């Protein structure tokens, strides 16, 4: 079931009404109902994968219980290690088996050995990367005694499978999210209103911006060998906007839905394209994944309170894993490693000037220095996106070569024709700029009539952009 489908709208209305009007006084029943609803939501794609998720969750629940029962440090560590390894094997089999098998076969072939194809026909279950990380997070938090394991299996299953964040995040840490399932949720008007704003802005980003840019980016990437470099640059720009609109749109909708059910999610995006450096970009892009890696991998490895070489090694490991987490393809690995390389200046030559919390802090406009920093950061991010978008490394390199060698024509029809998205992109960034210090970009401090008028305008834009006959999938579903 896709957020941008009519059937989801109907599903959500039913769940919301039953949740608040029938079950509002009973937390356990609410959790059970959320669990059933999440199973319907997930099973809509393929009900067979519910078994996988169920087994994974059961294992996660049991490991928390076992860790808690053991007092011996080494036994606790052993159970934690088994849990992590088992979860990673589970994820690895479904997501990476074919990737490693074919890469290994290619490696053997290049060294002169002839190998038969030993890949398997494995379907990647949607959301596996997300719910596996939730399970690992639970085991680690219990091990660290930052979270008391729950004996309420329904609450645990509801936490793992909670439909707004099940298939594309945000990746919630168990210590932050599970306790919310154990207490009574009260309907709160300001929270619900903010939730609706998150949802509206999320739909705008997904349907109007991401889907609109996606069509153009796809058209350009699919014909890059014949396009002038001006169009190729435009293609990268559109993909950068598409992936931001798509992914942040999804998580905004998820956060909004969570709020409507009385839950608080971690913020996942905070105007990342207004970043002035690569480290700042990663503090604003996919925040939940970054903080997951920071808390569970980077800091245990020593973080940055070590020698610069070790700090770089830690960064490298985190970004290598982050790239691999995104998909079983060398393009994602290179994408991740490239960010590790881009981090080098901030490790070895840290900027001594204190960075303000956000660009143009306390002012309407940014300084010239900030604008230059922003442009450089965005350009570097775009370079990395080419690897992310391309089907293979060869394709990515060919794309770069085409940018460098093809003529630069600004009057080309293929350059001028896709420019109709620009006013909408401008609208997106104008609103984001105005509210760059806020969590929800639609928390506008305008008078009610203007605000409502603007909301209606956005709704019409969404309605006149949505494809009612075929909803487009979210890019991050494949991860």
């Amino acid at each position, binding site marked *: 079931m896709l957020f941008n489908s009519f059937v989801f709208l109907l599903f959500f209305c039913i769940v919301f009404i039953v949740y*608040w009007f029938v079950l509002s006084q009973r937390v356990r029943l609410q959790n059970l109902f959320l669990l059933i609803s999440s199973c319907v939501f997930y099973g809509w794609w393929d009900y067979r994968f519910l078994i996988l998720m169920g087994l994974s969750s059961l294992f996660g629940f049991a490991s928390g219980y076992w860790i808690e029962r053991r007092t011996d440090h080494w036994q606790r560590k052993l159970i934690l290690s088994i849990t992590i390894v088992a979860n990673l094997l589970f994820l690895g089999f479904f997501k990476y088996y074919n990737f490693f098998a074919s890469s290994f076969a290619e490696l053997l072939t290049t060294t002169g050995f002839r190998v038969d194809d030993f890949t398997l026909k494995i379907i990647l279950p949607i959301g596996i990367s997300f719910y596996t990380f939730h399970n690992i997070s639970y085991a680690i938090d219990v091990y660290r005694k930052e979270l008391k394991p729950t004996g309420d299996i329904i609450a645990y299953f509801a936490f793992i499978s909670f439909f707004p964040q099940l298939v594309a995040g945000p990746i919630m840490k168990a210590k932050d999210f599970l306790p919310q399932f154990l207490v009574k949720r009260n*309907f709160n*008007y300001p929270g*619900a*209103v903010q939730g609706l704003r998150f949802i509206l802005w999320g739909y705008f980003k997904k349907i109007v911006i991401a889907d609109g840019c996606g069509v153009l980016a796809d058209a350009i990437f699919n014909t890059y060998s014949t396009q002038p470099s001006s169009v190729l640059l435009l293609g990268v720009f559109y993909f950068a906007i598409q992936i931001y609109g798509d992914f942040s749109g999804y998580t905004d909708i998820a956060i909004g839905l969570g709020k409507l059910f009385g839950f608080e999610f971690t913020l996942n995006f905070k105007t990342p394209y207004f970043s002035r450096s690569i480290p700042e970009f990663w503090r604003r892009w996919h925040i939940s994944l970054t903080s997951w890696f920071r808390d569970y991998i980077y800091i245990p490895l020593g973080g940055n309170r070590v020698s610069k070489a070790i700090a770089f090694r830690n960064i490298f490991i985190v970004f290598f894993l982050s790239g691999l987490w995104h998909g079983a393809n060398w393009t994602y690995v290179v994408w991740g490693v490239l960010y590790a390389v881009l981090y080098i200046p901030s490790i070895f030559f840290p900027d001594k000037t204190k960075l303000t919390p956000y660009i143009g802090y306390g002012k309407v406009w940014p300084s010239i220095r900030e604008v230059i920093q922003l442009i450089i950061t965005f350009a570097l991010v775009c370079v990395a996106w080419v690897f992310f978008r391309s089907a293979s490394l060869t394709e990515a390199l060919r794309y770069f070569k085409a940018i460098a060698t093809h003529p630069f024509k600004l009057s080309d029809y293929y350059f001028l*024709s896709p420019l*109709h998205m620009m006013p909408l992109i401008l609208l997106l960034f104008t609103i984001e700029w105005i509210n760059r210090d806020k969590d929800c970009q639609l928390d506008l401090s305008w008078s009610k009539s203007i605000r*409502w008028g603007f*909301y*209606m305008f956005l*709704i*019409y834009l969404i*309605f*006149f*952009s*949505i*494809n*009612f006959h075929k909803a487009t999938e979210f890019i991050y579903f494949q991860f």
Partner: protein
Amino acid sequence: MKRLIINSAVFVVLAYILSTMLSWGYTALFKNYKPDQSKKNWTLVRKGDTLDYITIGSSRVFHMVDVPLLNTLTNKKGLNIGTSGSSYADNYALLVKYLERNKVQALILNADELCFHSTTGYTYPFKDYEYMPYFFEDTINQVYKDNVPKWKYYVWSGIPLSRYIEFNEHYELGSVLWLNAKKPVCKFDTTAGTELLYDMNYKKFLRTDTLPVQKDTLHIEQRDELYFHKIISLCREKGMKVILITTPLFTKGIYAPANRAKFQQYLDRLIREEKLTYINFMDVTSLQDVRYFRDMTHTNIEGTRIYTRYLARQLKDHF
């Protein structure tokens, strides 16, 4: 919760009022402006034509009656307003709109078995999205009522703008605002409305594994028959002559012989009832040659030209 419900209700009411006004604006705009240069839209915006005849039907008219050639041979002035995959209901709606602004003396209407079981004969027999600006006009509204699912009809009737929103790819405001940035492409002859099919690779459809299995039963849909009669009545009201034709089919592939006979009997009854002039090309044996077909239901350019010459000869007696 109460506050949320009240505010949501107020918002919905305001949105309803605004949508109603926008819907009026959309209707006024798209009645006369068609950003999408489809054959249907090309026909709908025409005005001031004074013609001797028009041909109407599905792709079997659109691609198989070479109107420029027919005009030359008959020394008449005609137009082909046939559109792909369209049922009689669709033809009727188009004809209603076309005759409001144009004057025609005769209608050449195609009739074959596909026309009388349109829901299985065509993938999208009534192109509901094409007539949205005329949705509330009585005649067209009735066509919608008869041809779209009830729930859809009520949604489009009751929720302003919903009919444009559902088909937003055809009613893009952007394409108007951006001065039609999409370059319209008309594949058909824009002087007479015909599109000839150049594909001569006729042998590919004769592979036995691609031939449809024909059942020996005749299936007639009441709705198609109803709209067949409505077309005839409309023409009579306008003082137009109706000439019924059956464009060629590659009969070896498409029909079970017993079925064909049954359909012909049925059609003969309709012709008698309506007292129509009828020209049947199904039995012209010289046209039953695979070289003249692109597929089982369409002639290629060569077949179309031969067939149009036959038609011209026959029509001379009836014009």
